[in-house]
């Protein structure tokens, strides 16, 4: 999980890979992430032909289908700029699984390995590459954090999210019990094993609510949608926010440029 961070001047340009979930279901998280990047003076490039990282087919055992989709994405980044992905799960797919997906094709494997080095999860990019230090003067708030499994175990970026939130002086972050435990989404798992998935999601929203926080923060739209829709079904107004949205709101509230 440890990686060498680029040294030298800050990049001027980045690609933004929004992920299919953000594109269709949580566009505001994508907009907020882009706004925050632009706020740092970065030119954000959005390759229009991007669709999905291919993870759903890959994890379902349909690697050949995932390859077709992954290969289409791999052509979209001609420059060696960082590719910022607002999801630990999709970033993990592109960074760690693309090279495996093309293991039997030397040319594509080399391309996938090069691409993997360009991939940055959103919070990782903010903290380790841009080295942001933000001042927060928003209203005091108490939130809790849901860390996605890929962020934690593939990307190691659960620490970055925590560190970014810690920069916000007005924000009190409380820890849920069983923080490292999965929310029960698991992509197609939630469709194939709804009873187990529901049990896990139910326990997770209970744990988040028990913290007494006003909202939970997640850097992964998959988990966030799973938990928010579980809460909605319960008629509960407690909801989660994407990290990008939360950060953007805090900085806007501080009266800084947005």
């Amino acid at each position, binding site marked *: 999980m440890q990686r060498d961070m680029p040294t030298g001047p800050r990049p001027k340009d980045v690609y933004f890979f929004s992920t299919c979930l953000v*594109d269709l279901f949580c566009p505001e998280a994508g907009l907020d992430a*882009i706004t925050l990047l632009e706020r740092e003076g970065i030119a954000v490039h959005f390759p229009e032909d991007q669709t999905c990282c291919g993870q759903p087919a890959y994890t*379902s055992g349909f690697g050949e289908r995932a390859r077709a989709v992954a290969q*289409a994405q791999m052509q979209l980044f001609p420059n060696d700029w960082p590719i910022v992905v607002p999801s630990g799960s999709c970033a993990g797919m592109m960074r760690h699984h693309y090279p495996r997906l093309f293991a039997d094709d030397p040319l594509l494997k080399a391309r996938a390995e090069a691409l993997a080095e360009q991939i940055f999860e959103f919070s990782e990019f903010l903290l380790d590459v841009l080295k942001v230090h933000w001042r927060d003067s928003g209203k005091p708030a108490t939130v809790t954090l849901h860390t996605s499994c*890929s962020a934690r175990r593939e990307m190691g970026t659960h620490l970055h999210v925590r560190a970014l939130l810690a920069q916000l002086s007005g924000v009190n972050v409380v820890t849920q019990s069983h923080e490292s435990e999965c929310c029960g989404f698991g992509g197609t*798992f939630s469709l194939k094993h709804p009873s187990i998935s529901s*049990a896990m999601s139910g*326990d997770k929203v209970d744990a988040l609510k028990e913290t007494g926080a006003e909202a939970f923060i997640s850097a992964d739209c998959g988990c966030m949608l799973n938990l928010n*829709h579980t809460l909605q079904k319960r008629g509960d107004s407690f909801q989660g926010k994407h990290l990008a949205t939360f950060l953007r709101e805090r900085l806007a509230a501080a009266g800084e440029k947005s």
Partner: protein
Amino acid sequence: MNAPENTQTLSFIPASEFKQRTTEAVADAHLRQSFRSAMDFLMAKRAAQFPDADALEAQRALAEHIRRYSLSRLPELLEKLERQLTANGIQVHWAENAEQANAIIVGIAQKHSAELMVKGKSMVSEETELNHAMEAAGIAALESDMGEYIVQLDGEKPSHIIMPAIHKTKQQIARLFAEKVPGASYTESVDELIGIGRAVLREKFMAAEIGLSGVNFAVAETGTLCLVENEGNGRMCTTVPDVHIAITGIEKVVEKLEHVPPLLNLLTRSATGQIITTYFNMISRPRQPGELDGPKEVHLVLLDNGRTQAYADEQMRATLQCIRCGACMNHCPVYTRIGGHAYGTTYPGPIGEIISPHMMGLAATHALPTASTLCGACGEVCPVKIPIPDLLIRLRAEATHDARPGHAPLVGQGAARSALMDFVWAGWAALYSRPALYRAFVWLATRFRFLTPPMQSGWTVSRTPLKPAPRTLREQLAGRHLKT
């Protein structure tokens, strides 16, 4: 003979019933609470053993190295083990499947006109359902590990490989003992309950002609069978009866004794958070002339039962690195919700999901590898670094596809294949690899979001329906100055 005829179908619930069982299990609040608190306890105990993450990583790397090295030389090490055990006076038997293994053990027992076999904890004997075979031959087979004794008394199977009776409360055990153990009165004192078991079982250790055990590590160079336990029943079974039969999977062999301490250390700390167990028992010979106790005969049964199928593939071979600590199940959010019985296999939890298909074939087990969110907790804690999530994905692929070119088909290869799923994924790939088509699709999805179906398969069981946003991100960005 290309496909090994070594797959045993046990009394297994068909894949179609797996969902039924898991649905019932998650609805059992009592069961959920039992497993939650037990797994929390075991996770905390393990975590306390590994305060230094770097040291743990170094130990895991060494343990993985030892296991991979042992497997890389497996056929040679098995022959070496056989030679050395034979030289030590221990008789070695080979079994391709459960039936052969049971026949060997029944045969030895019959040769000694045995009426009673006492058993130390052996998951491999659970795998072969040895107790049934013994009973069919008119020989009683009695479990002596306290947890195994309890589940056997109640006509059940273990729900955890280390803690067989973890699903039971002391009240349930108190009732069970009062009902089934002659002379036992109802008590909820754990000390008294253990005392009842102790008294019954000590009589049986004395009476039994045969003692059976598993093996944690078999050392090829010295011809030594190593057993790890806390209770002492393992020592009883391997020392008191005249005949000791050990049974193990062929993957348990290591080359040298020096390979054992690193594995032992991680085994006990990962399993129960103990730096060592009460007994670490190294058996190298039967009773020697002049010795006053110990078994007069020692046998080792080496079982394949699908392991060579896993071995035949370089990726799936990693499955055999397992040292059976159970940490993967202790940390598995799915196992914690459904418990061990719902899997319907000898080995539950993540390790069971990747090893059972080799033992029982994919036709019976293809649902198991799908019962995971791929959260990675299992792989993270595995002391020998088995990439369990990757193996789950691999088995999902094998269950839904023909064998890869140049690879022999697995037993039950393609058993979960469906024209519908092939069609769905082909359509999905066509959509997501053609940007124009994808753009048209999301444009329509946002424009017709009011048509979003209110029921969305498993998703809406406990969630409101997923509804596309009014406009996609890309559409909203199109109005900005963004570069593309």
